């Protein structure tokens, strides 16, 4: 059967693989791969727990049957090659699905025209439909999105990713608005839709009289919740301004508590039969318990994680594991008590982040970031594909009136809810929401897989109309994802909604923002008004005084936020300079315990003072590096630029060019400016490049005896290539202050050979080397000592 299908598929392709345009070729290769994958998937049935498992066994029995027959008749000779698929079936299928999802994602990005029009989620659902259709063609029952799998394996990575990287400042600033939308908005939606649907069901001629009020309300509560997965998937691509993003996204996260409570409430009531006022009151109490309990559980695990990370300085490798496991435990613990798992996860991620980031190494930070993105990406893809497959598979009961009514009521409820709530909210907001904002908020209310899974969980005995609900929900999901998802981008452009500002914060903004915070706190104190700033200030003080000491290891606990920010900025600038190949110096600062710079008095205004290092400083540097950096070499030599973690997502080209220009200007002026007393010229330092893919290495030399610091760098691949830079054309290469970042190491091995070979007078072309190291195995000790010269 496999051969039949694949040959059928293959037959179609040779015609297409006539390369005219590369995207055709890519597209067709992609489809071929898809076909092969699907072809191999089909006889294996679907994922675990599905009705396909029975048929899979049939297949295997057929496969094993031959063997058995052989056993009965003759004495079987030793099986050189045997087939035992049953053992590996489960992991095999799971891996195949994950592979399919990843290949899909890959494929879409190979077809840029398509992915710019259609959001990824739509394409994935279509793929799911196709796969489901193919499976059905073959005669097997396609797998359905099991609620357990969804809630325990697919949803947590996405939520953790969202929670860990939640922009806290904007979130807390708009918390009131977000809560209004999440709680009141969802309640309004639920009762509006549920109530009106009940009304429709009571109408004559709809054959829907079997649907009672509670079922309708339950259905309403499930379908009214905005889905974080869908919102993330769509909003990620349109780069809308941060306020709207956080409003819709925050709403989608926080309405989970409401949904959980309403769902359980109505489910219980359906079983119980009668509702009393106490039940209603208990429902409200339940809501508070669910949401606050979830947050408390999450916060506890977050603090535990932060505390654990304080002691991981010797076992850096498993740091990410702690983060993931604690967060997952928070989610599961909340689920045990029927609390809101999503809120627990968000609280855990948000609470632990500032402390954990101060404690863990830079490599771990990168690892966590990439793992989270990877998992959430795969989950996201799988969810949408499974939605498509489940649509084909699921038992459907199409009822025109019910479905259309659901759709219409959902849309109307959303619009009315947003308008009404904004009217009330704007009375309390300083920055009001315009009607454009309201439109986007209303339009961005996408429904997704959570609603589907919740309905799927319903017991058909208590809810005989479950299939109808499923059909209606799938229709609404399809509509919101396809229609709203596809049209939101052109609408955003049409309405000229403000987009996300791409630039980073400058140090000016940071300083002034802190200054203004203090100012506003002071003014509030003068007014005697305990407002937003007052409480924020109190929290910050408490944080600094007690919490940070507890949860952050070592000296980082005392580092003020501004300094941490400044370090980060310096680092980023260093990376940019490295990548743009420009610049010869960086203004840098040491952390609180060591100061390495004596800034020379300024001469002409454009000249930058250059640091000078004494022996005492050298010792301090060594001490710091030993304690804080991963690996250091004892010989300190000056280095002129750090090659550091490059975050390819962050840097803009213009900024780099401007900085490069500026640095070149400064360089020229610096060339004749010697600050270091000239001891005998020592060996130039050579930074070694260990690049993951493109080895381009240049040597870095400084002629005078200046401390250099050997540090080992970690970095992911940097897409920009490094150019050779003509650095110092004179012997006056300046000592640089070294910069240190906890957990960051940079390797600059020096070469003995070079020292002997070259005389101090020689001015070899100073070149520039970039150190990177794989997060992977590569690394370490053996290679370091060899200077690597191109």
């Amino acid at each position: 059967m496999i051969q039949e299908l694949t040959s059928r598929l293959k037959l179609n392709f040779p015609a297409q693989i006539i390369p005219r345009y590369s995207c055709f070729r890519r597209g067709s290769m992609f489809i071929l791969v898809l076909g092969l994958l699907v072809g191999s998937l089909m006889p294996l049935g679907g994922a675990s727990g599905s009705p396909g498992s029975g048929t899979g066994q049939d297949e295997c029995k057929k496969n094993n049957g031959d063997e058995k027959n052989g056993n009965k008749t003759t004495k079987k000779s030793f099986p050189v090659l045997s087939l035992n698929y049953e053992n590996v079936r489960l992991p095999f299928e799971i891996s195949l699905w994950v592979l399919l999802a990843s290949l899909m994602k890959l494929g879409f990005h190979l077809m840029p025209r398509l992915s710019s029009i259609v959001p990824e989620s739509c394409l994935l659902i279509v793929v799911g439909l196709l796969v489901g259709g193919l499976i059905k063609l073959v005669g097997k029952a396609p797998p359905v999105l099991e609620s357990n799998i969804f809630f325990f394996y697919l949803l947590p990575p996405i939520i953790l990713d969202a929670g860990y990287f939640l922009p806290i400042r904007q979130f807390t600033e708009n918390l009131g608005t977000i809560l209004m939308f999440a709680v009141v908005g969802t309640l309004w939606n639920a009762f509006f839709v549920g109530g009106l649907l009940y009304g429709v069901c009571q109408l004559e001629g709809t054959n829907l009289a079997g649907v009672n009020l509670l079922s309708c309300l339950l259905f309403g509560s499930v379908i009214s919740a905005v889905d974080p997965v869908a919102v993330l998937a769509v909003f990620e691509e349109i780069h809308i301004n941060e306020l709207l993003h956080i409003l819709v996204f925050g709403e989608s996260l926080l309405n989970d508590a409401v949904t959980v409570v309403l769902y359980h409430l109505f489910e219980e009531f359906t079983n119980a039969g009668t509702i009393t006022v106490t039940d209603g009151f208990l429902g409200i109490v339940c809501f508070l318990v669910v949401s606050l309990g979830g947050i408390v559980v999450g916060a506890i695990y977050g603090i535990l994680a932060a505390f654990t990370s304080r002691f991981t300085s010797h076992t850096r490798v498993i740091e990410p594991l702690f983060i993931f496991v604690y967060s997952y435990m928070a989610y599961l613990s909340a689920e045990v008590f029927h609390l809101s798992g999503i809120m627990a996860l968000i609280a855990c991620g948000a609470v632990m982040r500032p402390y954990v980031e101060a404690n863990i190494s830079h490599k771990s930070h990168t690892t966590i970031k990439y793992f989270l993105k990877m998992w959430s990406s795969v989950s996201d893809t799988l969810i949408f594909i499974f939605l498509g497959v489940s649509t084909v598979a699921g038992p459907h009961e199409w009822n025109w009136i019910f479905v259309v009514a659901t759709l219409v009521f959902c849309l109307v409820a959303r619009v009315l809810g947003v308008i009404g709530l904004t009217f009330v909210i704007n009375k309390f907001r300083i920055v009001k929401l315009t009607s454009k904002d309201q439109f986007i908020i209303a339009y961005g209310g996408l429904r997704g897989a959570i609603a589907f899974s919740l309905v799927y969980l319903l017991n058909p005995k208590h809810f005989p109309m479950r299939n109808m609900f499923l059909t209606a929900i799938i229709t609404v999901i399809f509509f919101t994802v396809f229609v709203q998802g596809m049209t939101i981008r052109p609408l955003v452009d049409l309405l000229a909604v403000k987009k996300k500002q791409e630039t980073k914060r400058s140090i000016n903004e940071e300083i002034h923002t802190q200054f203004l915070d203090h100012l506003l706190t002071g003014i509030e104190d003068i007014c005697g008004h305990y407002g937003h700033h007052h409480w924020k200030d109190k929290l910050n003080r408490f944080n600094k005084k007690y919490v940070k000491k507890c949860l952050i290891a070592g000296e980082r606990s005392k580092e003020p936020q501004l300094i941490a920010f400044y370090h980060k900025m310096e680092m980023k600038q260093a990376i940019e300079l490295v990548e743009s190949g420009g610049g010869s110096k960086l203004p840098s600062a040491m952390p609180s315990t060591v100061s390495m710079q004596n800034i020379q008095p300024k001469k002409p205004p454009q000249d930058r003072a250059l640091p000078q290092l004494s022996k005492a400083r050298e010792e301090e540097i060594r001490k710091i590096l030993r304690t804080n950096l991963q690996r250091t070499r004892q010989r300190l030599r000056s280095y002129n630029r750090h090659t550091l973690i490059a975050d390819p997502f962050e840097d803009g080209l213009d900024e780099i060019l401007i900085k490069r220009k500026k640095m070149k200007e400064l360089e020229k002026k610096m060339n004749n400016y010697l600050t270091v007393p000239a001891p005998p010229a020592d060996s130039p330092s050579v930074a070694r490049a260990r690049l993951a893919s493109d080895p381009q290495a240049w040597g870095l030399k400084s002629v005078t005896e200046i401390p250099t610091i050997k540090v080992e760098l970690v970095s992911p691949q940097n897409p920009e290539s490094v150019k050779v830079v003509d650095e110092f054309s004179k012997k006056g290469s300046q000592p640089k202050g070294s910069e240190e970042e906890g957990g960051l190491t940079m390797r600059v091995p020096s070469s003995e050979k070079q020292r002997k070979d070259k005389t101090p007078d020689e001015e070899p072309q100073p070149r520039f080397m970039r150190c990177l190291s794989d997060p992977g195995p590569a690394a370490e000790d053996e290679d370091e000592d060899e200077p690597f010269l191109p």
Partner: protein
Amino acid sequence: MGSTNSTLLKIPNVEVLMQETGLKLVAEENCLNVSPAHIIRLHDRFKALDKEGRGHLCPHDFGAIKELAMNPIGDRIIGAFFSPGKETVDFHTFVKILAHFRPVDKDRPKEPNSPEPINSRSNKLKFAFQLYDQDKDGKISRDELLQVLRAMLGMQVTDEQLESIADRTIQEADLDRDDTISFEEFRKSLEKINIDHKMSIRFLR
């Protein structure tokens, strides 16, 4: 409203004050806003701070607010209330300074020749700028910046670090390369920040 009338009599030039600052005297006819009018509240606060009942405030009256003492720039804020040379703050000035922090009225009609309202974005920024610029020469010099940084960061950082931060700050903001930050440069460096939101207190709406 009876209390309003009697308090009104005690506040001199109350209409002028209202005009200049835009603060309200009567409660809005709005079911959602039933708090007493702003000027009345501020007047009550003024009287609470003025413990000796002199009718004006001295620096040590402000110093008695203990949270303000903990504020790193508390003394600068207090200093902003007192115009140069004067030792006391009367209610009029008190209210005028605080009026800087009213939220901006977006729907005010823009009269062409009227002076900018005291709580406009530009005036808010000017107020903040003056807190930096203690010698009032219209520019923030490197030393002034260092003082502010030292005040905000306390003793945890070394001089060299502060200096490099200050250098960096000036380098970023200084467009005409005179090594100081003028008001225009200050304004420009903050253009992305929502000052209307950041420098507003809801209390004074």
